[in-house]
């Protein structure tokens, strides 16, 4: 089952915020992080996120557990970009046989790693605190997205965990038939392809049945729909959105004022 420990309680301020607000706040912060090519802008954004986290109701423990692999990945990105930079510019900091690291390459590598860090952190803060159903409700109500697309995706999302369970069943059934990957990479590839095929055949049938069941309950008829649950933009939502935009702009402005700001081409 696809269940992950929640990073905040159901009544935390951020859990109650409108999902579309959070979507735009995430977009604002990650855009700022991604257009800036320097190291200071993402660092300032990270600092701002750290300051904001206690007010959101998100608990540090679960948040950091959720983030550790993403940050580890960001570290790996930084290291790779430093070592494999096109040119090792600036003072040579380290020289180990063929490996040579210049100060310029290190700064650029760290900057890239920090940007990934910002995108990961703000993404987890925004989406791990959002119920998919609420997001779908808000998308159809605030952004007027097509219910056919939005609710269809939501129903498909609900089916995803079933695929994991079915994959295990198919693999077990394959073993019963005398088919197993073992250590032979060719056989493993064949087994993977055959399991995937069976999974897809099943998924297609299931999708067809789900679509029929949704139609039978009047979905996508010409009639307009009502909403059982209202999603509204309230004052705190506007405040959150304004804060996200202001902080993103401020980070860029501070970095520019100090002369470190670099624009990504």
């Amino acid at each position, binding site marked *: 089952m696809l269940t992950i420990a929640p990073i905040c309680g159901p009544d935390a301020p951020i859990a109650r915020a409108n999902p579309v607000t959070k979507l735009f706040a995430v977009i604002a912060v990650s855009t700022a992080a991604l257009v800036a090519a320097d190291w200071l802008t993402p660092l300032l954004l990270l600092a701002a996120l750290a300051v904001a986290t206690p007010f959101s109701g998100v608990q540090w423990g679960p948040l950091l557990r959720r983030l550790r692999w993403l940050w580890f990945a960001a570290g790996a990105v930084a290291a790779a970009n430093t070592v494999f930079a096109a040119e090792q510019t600036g003072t040579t900091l380290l020289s180990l046989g063929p490996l040579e690291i210049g100060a310029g390459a290190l700064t650029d590598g760290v900057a890239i790693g920090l940007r990934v860090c910002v995108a990961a952190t703000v993404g987890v803060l925004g989406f791990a605190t959002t119920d998919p159903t609420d997001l779908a409700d808000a998308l159809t109500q605030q952004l007027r997205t097509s219910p056919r697309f939005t609710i269809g995706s939501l129903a498909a999302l609900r089916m995803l965990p079933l695929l994991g369970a079915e994959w295990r069943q198919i693999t077990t059934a394959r073993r*019963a038939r005398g088919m197993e990957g073992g250590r032979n990479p060719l056989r493993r590839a064949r087994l993977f392809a055959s399991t995937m095929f069976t999974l897809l055949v099943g998924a297609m049938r299931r999708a067809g049945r789900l679509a029929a069941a949704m139609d039978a309950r009047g979905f996508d008829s010409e009639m307009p729909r009502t909403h059982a649950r209202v999603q509204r933009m309230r004052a705190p939502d506007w405040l959150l959105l304004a804060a996200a935009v202001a902080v993103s702009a401020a980070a860029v402005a501070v970095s520019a004022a100090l002369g470190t700001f670099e624009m990504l081409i």
Partner: protein
Amino acid sequence: MISVEFSGFTWRHAGRRAPAVADVDLRVEAGERVLLLGPSGSGKSTLLAALAGLLTTDSGERHGRVLLDGEDAASRRGCVGMLFQDPETQLVMARSGDDVAFGLENQAVPREEIWPRVREALEAVGFPYPMGHPTHALSGGEQQRLALAGVLARRPELILLDEPTANLDPEGAGAIREALRAALTDTPATLIVVEHRVADILDLVDRVVALGPGGELLADGPAEAVFAEHGDTLAAQGVWVPGAPLPAHPGGTPGESRLHGESLSLTYPGADRPALDGVDFDLRAGELLAVTGANGSGKSTLALLAGGLVKPTRGEATVPGERTPLHRLPANRLATRVGSVFQDPEHQFVTATVRDELAFAPRAAGWPRERIDARVSELLERLRLAPLAEANPHTLSGGEARRLSVAGALAAAPGVLLLDEPTFGQDRRTWGELVDLTADIRDDGTAILAVTHDRDFVAALASREIALEDGRVRSETRRC
């Protein structure tokens, strides 16, 4: 209440040569409660889909008329509620209450009316959880009750039920029937139900309509009259006619031991108690051992461990002449020792033709060519699959796919066959075929372990029965 009329109705699914139903004339008066019978492939589900307005012009070719209260069915979609067979694919939302509300939102019911109606529908079906309960945490029977609430909340004037209990265990099926009974006394809606297990729902209907293999009208009238006059024909077509005799195949004296289970135990990762806890058994040649118990009692886990398909936490399953426990055998060798047949036959299909499917395990076991060919021909004949030898396994009917999965498990001549719910959801005819086939295999000297809810199957074939409860053996009985 709404009246139903088919006149000269023919429907051919896009891409198919033969029509699913041809020239159907049928009238159901407002408020009538009709049981619709017919063999597999006679188009019962197609008729229901037509009434629910699900047959759109781009999905096939249509002649004749389908009328609800004299109007084209497609224009009255909002008055029809349909419950399908598979609970898993009827739920749309992550929270139970939201799922019932979904149908009301589509009907544009004003918000302030939605939640009271959701609550009322959930109460009507005896849904035992709060509205926020996650739908994925429900059992099959509970999911089906929730889906029924979703149908009832829309206050349909015509209710269609397409084998509503076929995918459920006896407990879940019983709860659905109870919910239906309660709900139907409260509504004047017209009802059309398709169901093979007739006896359980006869008290819900006042008229039985039976279709022939081509969708032609075979019989129509009150249940007693229809079954008295056409009982044998209907039974031959797959209907569980009430009171029709069931076959009995008592086995001979069991031979030597073929499979031994020693304190088999398994705790699934993250579970707080074992799914199976120290089960011992011994299975002999020529006998059928039935494993029974409620859902979650560990039956299916026992089948997995006995078949060497999953590594036990403790204990082991072994066959004579093989020192390595089954779960450590390589798959190609395992298939020559134990054959396992799963609930969903399609999970086991690994090739593109029926013939290759049967040759697969013998080939993996390294049999010589002539021996493989002889074995495949023998199985094709014996399981009546010869005419389908070149067909794709995924295109077979339910009964054929089931026979193929049994044949595939037997292909490499294992001495042991394990069956997981072999008769689940089958009509009477396929059921009879499976019982006869299982008896043949057993009487040829194969040792069979069958995990099942089906009391009739146990009565017909089992010489011993192990009843499980909470992962342990509650009782062991010797039959016949």
